[in-house]
């Protein structure tokens, strides 16, 4: 038996979620619980089933199997009450291009019984100076802010953001991040999808890494990175694609793991200042030369690569 929502404090929960399109299994038995007051991220590559999952939670798609509960209510029974309390930003929302920013917000505001003042929303999204502009004339970042504005007009308890910053310039991304953090600080719950690991790391209290319709890892970004066993990654490549045996590499001081890519080798290391000199000495001993050497802090991307052998985004 499921615990009651009041006790568990879950803003959204699904268990055993399955969704099939034709012969593609988009979501393959996915479990999720978003706690009230947290920012929860679904992180995964394109086609992992993130959008399908979030749209099922938003009540826009029906699952083929599985239980869904949002704010303690169920789709199909409490739809109008639920819709009043949710804020939704769809992936690539295209609003009516011939309406102005203010008219668009007014229109969305009219659908809700309670909510924010139109000017208030304009101010929140820093769109005051664009209030009389047609939606069709806005920049990508402004459009995205307007999409989020439409999701915030009713002061939702739960905000769904589907790839909120995809395709945005760095400044617009930071603006949206600040907004999301602010919403969360004032007690709102957020479920967002992203394929940017830095976004998940910057915004989310907890992250579910999704691949092929399933959650393959769950936890805070820090905990997930910690599962790597070390917090640095050393990436190197050798002339003519030569390599050193795994055992040799693993024996280097401070190295906790070895991973082979197409054209490079990655070492998971806790102490870069010990591992790198040792690596260089080993190469010297074998008469090998480096063509590349890069180190970075371990990220959720590295967690994904370790779990699946693939990158989040093929660049």
């Amino acid at each position, binding site marked *: 038996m499921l615990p009651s929502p009041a006790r568990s404090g879950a803003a959204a929960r699904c268990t055993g979620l399955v969704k099939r399109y034709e012969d593609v299994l988009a979501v393959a038995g996915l479990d999720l619980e978003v706690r009230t007051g947290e920012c929860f991220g679904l992180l995964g590559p394109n086609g992992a089933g993130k959008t399908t999952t979030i749209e099922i939670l938003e*009540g826009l798609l029906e699952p083929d199997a599985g239980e869904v509960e949002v704010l303690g209510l169920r789709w199909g029974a409490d739809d*109008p009450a639920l*819709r009043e309390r949710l804020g939704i930003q*769809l992936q690539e*929302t295209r609003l009516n291009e011939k*309406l102005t920013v203010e008219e668009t917000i007014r229109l969305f505001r009219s659908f809700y019984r*309670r909510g924010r*003042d139109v000017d208030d929303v304009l101010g929140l999204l820093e769109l005051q100076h664009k209030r009389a502009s047609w939606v069709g004339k806005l920049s990508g970042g402004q459009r995205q802010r307007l999409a989020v504005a439409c999701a915030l007009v009713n002061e939702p308890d739960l905000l769904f953001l589907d790839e909120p910053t995809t395709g945005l310039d760095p400044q617009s991304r930071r603006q949206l991040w600040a907004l999301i953090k602010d919403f969360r600080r004032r007690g709102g719950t957020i479920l967002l999808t992203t394929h940017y690991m830095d976004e998940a790391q910057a915004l989310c209290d907890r992250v579910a890494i999704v691949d092929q319709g399933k959650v393959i890892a769950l936890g805070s970004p820090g905990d997930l990175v910690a599962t790597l066993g070390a917090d640095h990654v050393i990436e190197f490549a050798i002339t003519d694609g030569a390599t050193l045996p795994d055992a040799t590499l693993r024996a280097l001081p401070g190295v906790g793991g070895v991973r082979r890519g197409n054209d490079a080798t990655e070492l998971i290391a806790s102490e870069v200042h010990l591992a790198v000199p040792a690596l260089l000495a080993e190469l010297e001993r074998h008469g090998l030369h480096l063509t590349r050497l890069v180190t970075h802090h371990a990220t959720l991307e590295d967690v994904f690569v370790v779990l699946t052998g693939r990158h989040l985004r093929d660049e």
Partner: protein
Amino acid sequence: MSDRGGAFSPLVELTTARLREFVREPEALFWVVVFPILLAFALGIAFPNRGEQPVLIGVEQTDGAEALARTLQAARGIRARLVRPADAERALRNGEVQLVVVPGAPPTYRYDPTRTESRLARLVVDSALQRASGRTDAWQAGEEHVDNVGSRYIDWLIPGLLGVNIMSTGLWGIGFSVVQARTKKLLKRLVATPMRRSQYLLAHLLARLVFLGVEVGALLVFARLAFGVPIRGSLLTLVGIAVVGALSFGGLGLLLASRARTLEAISGLMNVVTLPLWVLSGVFFSSANFPAAMQPVIRVLPLTALNDALRAVMLDGAPARALGGEVAVMAAWGLGSFAIAVKIFRWR
């Protein structure tokens, strides 16, 4: 501005959004308001009341042709000219002449008896030649010539154009906007709010009624000023018929748009529906031209009902109570379509 909360009515906001979207689309304004006026103007020029039209006669250039042509030219309502034998057939075929007279004793008439104007030409020519040869008429009938405003082609045409306009804007105006909203995922975004779906559809119909005043008014005023087309019945009845017609086609527009996923699909559907109506429902020529077997079908078409009702009010001054049948046909189409559309509408 302070938070007005519940003072925002979703139906009002949706309707004004629809009106704004339309007014900010100059092409749409052209098709709804300017195009019908241009069409009426062009047709008014093409089919003016030119008074009595003479029959056009060719006289084949052989012996006695010139005398014969002079005789014909002297008679009333005949315009005769000489044609070379080699050209006669071509002139007949192209309608340059409606009948060719071959001089002789007696002369020969060469014409196509399936063409009304040629049969008329034969009667006129024969009468003129017989009289010139000494025939006397048994008696002279009295004649009354009628040239009433209201019985001209343009008078008959304008209500038909009005009907077609109400149909086109209802179908295209609503259909295109709905399908566009669907392809752009705007519908999906709207159903993610607590918006009542019926209000979205209703807003389209309400916005239609506002445009209706503009488009019908513009065409009627133009027809009055340019051609003196009368409105014999009550203006209120006319407005009522236009509203029923607009709602009927608005419902049909929603139905056609209820499933279509692309603008190409909706365009195809619209053409399939409107082309037969253009032809069958008496826009440019009376639907009485179709065989009796087709009449029951033609009578229950929404555009036939609308055109008949508009003509009855404008030309015959029919009162509202005489139009029950037409109103019932239009209402049935409108309500039926709307009900089905609401049921099968694809929201994403």
